[in-house]
């Protein structure tokens, strides 16, 4: 099942055994007619080449579109990609699976010409010329949908789609043609978008469709999708996977970057697993592969994907939120009448698509954002008007969503970061003088306990990896014995090993009697960690339910505002 190195003689991409149930992973109905080939091969220069060079021609369907050989790239002393070799064939969906920082995006950015490789060879449709820049990549039939959408917010969908390959009439932008193109593509590929809508007004799911339409408008042979499902609801994800399958059936090859195992198994024909910048595994027989197999390859050891925890024993109410209203940065209502209770010894998971007021809710609770109206109480204390200092000392631990900005001071040492909100308290300070030996001893203890991998507690926090940075934050926020722990996206951008660890610590905090408010965009995380789930939409709780036996599909519908 896993062949770490492929000698290139074995045709890949088409499973040799096993029959998947949902779809046929082979390229269906191999059509070798001239018209069909001309329709799917869009780059005329390549078409003009002899068949043995271009790889096109009768009997050659399913040919290698992208061939990467021994590609390496370093940033300073960090090897982002080491000796990568992989192939993508026409009409195939290839998943690049790996943890954050495994080098997936770096690899694809090199294919797209955003980054220049140090060594190695990238061959596109038989053409070995190095890719100079995105313009070059686009002209050779490569399209990419980036993790952070590359759309100009103030422009319309049509303008965004035409940007870079504008149609003009007598020197004047011809928006009608662009609109027409958007309509045709959206109809053909089942991607509903309005060409005249301003991009900034569109929800993320729609923005992603715009990105795909944009890529398709360039007539792509190879479409790279960089973590496309990170911001989608489960339903939108399913829709997207369907669109991907249709595109692949139409002859477009797709490279799909992800760390979500479920999606890989649902849609991919061929999987490459990356770890520490190198290809560590390859799977062609998807039907006989399990999530555990993939996770093991990603991490290099077997991991427990499901959090082991006992049933919760909720105690008294620690957090009581009543009719809370909070505004966002643009001064629009983000939290609109939010009601929720969190009891001691339970984990309440807030599930929702990002941008439905979760961030503003957490910031308000942490004292970082002004409350417009409503109350929030911690036991008997009213925290509605508290500042972050008061909130912390009232017993609220806060693992912020943006750890770089709100969780750590990157230039400070690990030790200083570990006492960031207790630095002026005994024993870390006496009469206003900091007690460095006490701080150091405390930091050493936490470093050990939380497995913060570093050269020492004096190392600057900013130089740690994402997972270790998060462990510093988690260590600090759990160790002072909070009554309430707010964990916002606690495992975002964190490797699988650290995720497992952080989950265990959160459960341990719950068992220690803390109430936990878990906000996460990962439904899987909520389902496996929470005892009770509050689904939010439009800044309100639309439904609360016990996590036990909660229905994914129902939560997805509620998240999408269908209630």
């Amino acid at each position: 099942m896993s062949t770490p190195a492929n000698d290139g003689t074995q045709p890949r991409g088409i499973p040799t055994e096993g029959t998947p149930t949902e779809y046929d992973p082979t390229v269906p109905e191999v059509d070798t007619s001239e018209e069909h080939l001309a329709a799917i091969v869009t780059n005329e220069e390549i078409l003009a080449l002899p068949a043995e060079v271009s790889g096109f021609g009768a009997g050659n369907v399913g040919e290698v579109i992208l061939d990467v050989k021994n590609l390496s790239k370093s940033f300073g002393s960090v090897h982002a990609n080491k000796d990568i070799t992989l192939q993508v064939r026409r009409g195939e969906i290839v998943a690049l699976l790996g943890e954050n920082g495994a080098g997936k995006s770096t690899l694809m950015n090199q294919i797209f010409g955003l980054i220049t490789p140090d060594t190695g060879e990238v061959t596109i449709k038989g053409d070995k010329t190095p890719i100079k820049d995105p313009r070059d990549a686009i002209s050779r039939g490569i399209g990419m949908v980036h993790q952070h959408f590359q759309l100009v917010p103030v422009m319309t969908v049509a303008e965004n789609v035409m940007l870079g390959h504008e149609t003009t009439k007598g020197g004047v932008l011809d928006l009608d043609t662009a609109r027409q193109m958007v309509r045709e593509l959206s109809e053909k590929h089942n991607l509903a978008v309005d060409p005249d809508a301003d991009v900034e007004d569109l929800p993320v799911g729609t923005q992603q469709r715009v990105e795909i339409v944009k890529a398709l408008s360039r007539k792509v042979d190879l479409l790279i999708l960089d973590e496309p499902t990170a911001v989608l609801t489960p339903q939108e994800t399913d829709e997207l996977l369907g669109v991907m399958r249709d595109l692949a059936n139409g002859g477009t090859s797709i490279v799909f970057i992800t760390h979500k195992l479920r999606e890989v198994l649902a849609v991919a024909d061929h999987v490459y697993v990356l770890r520490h910048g190198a290809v560590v595994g390859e799977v062609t027989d998807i039907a006989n592969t399990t999530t555990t197999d993939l996770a093991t390859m990603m991490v290099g050891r077997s991991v427990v994907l499901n959090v082991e925890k006992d049933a919760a024993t909720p105690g008294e109410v620690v957090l009581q939120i009543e009719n809370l209203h909070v505004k966002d940065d643009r001064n629009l209502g983000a939290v609109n009448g939010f009601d929720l209770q969190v009891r001691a010894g339970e984990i309440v998971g807030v599930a929702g698509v990002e941008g439905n007021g979760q961030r503003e809710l957490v910031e308000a609770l942490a004292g970082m954002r002004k409350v417009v109206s409503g109350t929030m109480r911690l036991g008997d204390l009213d925290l509605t008007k508290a500042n972050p200092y008061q909130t912390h000392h009232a017993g609220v631990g806060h693992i912020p969503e943006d750890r770089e900005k709100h969780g750590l001071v990157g230039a400070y040492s690990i030790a200083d970061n570990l006492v960031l909100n207790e630095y002026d308290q005994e024993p870390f300070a006496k009469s206003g003088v900091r007690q460095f030996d006490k701080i150091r001893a405390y930091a050493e203890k936490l470093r050990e306990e939380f497995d913060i991998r570093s050269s020492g507690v004096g190392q600057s926090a900013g130089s740690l990896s994402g997972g270790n940075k998060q462990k510093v934050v988690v260590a600090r926020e759990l160790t002072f014995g909070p009554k309430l722990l707010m964990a916002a996206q606690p495992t975002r951008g964190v490797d699988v090993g650290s995720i497992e660890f952080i989950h265990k610590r959160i459960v341990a905090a719950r068992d220690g009697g803390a109430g936990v408010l878990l906000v996460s965009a990962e439904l899987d995380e909520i389902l496996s960690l929470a005892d009770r789930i509050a689904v939010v939409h439009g800044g309100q709780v639309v439904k609360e339910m016990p996590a036990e036996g909660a229905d994914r599909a129902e939560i997805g519908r509620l998240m999408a505002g269908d209630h």
Partner: protein
Amino acid sequence: MAAWIQRNKFSVILGVVVLVLAYIYYFSDKTTALSMYRYAWTYAVPLVLCALVGVIGERSGVVNIGIEGQLLVSAFAGFFGAAYSGSLIVGILSGVGCGLILGGFLAWTTVKWRMDQIIAGVVLNIVATGITSFYYKPGQLLPALMPHWSIPGLSSIPLIGEVFFKGTGVIALIAIIAVFGIHFGLFKTTWGLRTRAIGEYPSAADTAGINVITMRLVNVTLAGALAGLAGVFLSMDSTSSFERGMSAGRGFLALAIMIFGAWRPLRAAAAALFFGFVTAAASQLQADQVINVPPQLVGTLPYVLTLVVLAVAAGRVRAPGAVGQPFVKEGK
């Protein structure tokens, strides 16, 4: 057309009201009205040109706080170029050339070297003041006055023709063309779409295959020519002399006008005319002895107006998204 009017309803109504009022005053007191309107337009020309420099720069994502310096050096180079060579053409070309060179300096330092855009602009202004003061020589004269023509046909339109097309110099005409041309370019052409994209969200433009760095360099540099024209207008057209520090903050006023005009050329031109008109009205009132305040106080009017305008505009208009941020490509 109907759709355009619908979208810009407020601007159209305001424009019509202003125009009607202007005509009423014109027909009630032709001589005073005309002299005021001409004064306003003469005052507004360099502001219009400089505001366009600001618009092009910021729409491309580069703050140009050095317009003041470009203006001053160009005024200096234009005047002394003409005085020493004895040719107005040489003067105009050296003024425009200096505008281009300083535009290029700003573009190169901020886009290529990613120097802080504010600091680069301030440096430019300080250097401009220093150089022009140091090399300034009193007692020089222009070889001739700048030629002024009347455009046949257009100049006989009451008020508008008489102000904009009767006895007008070439730079004022270019300013009018530039406003409409750049407005059209910015919103109707490929250049404009790409320029707005690199100023709003450069990485989107980059991934669409647009060379952000080159485009910013070219835009900011070429816009310098307009600042050069504005400088030449100051020292050779509206007056025929160069004084130390004669730009008198017009480059900064232009930035305020750009903001008031919501980074749109047509609105910015209207804002510049408004500035010109208020200044003209104030000096007219003073000349008529209607108000009796020291002339220095009247002279501060444009600057006070700037403060008011910026306070009014604050929060109502939105700057291009990436303005002030250098574009960095990783891994290159």
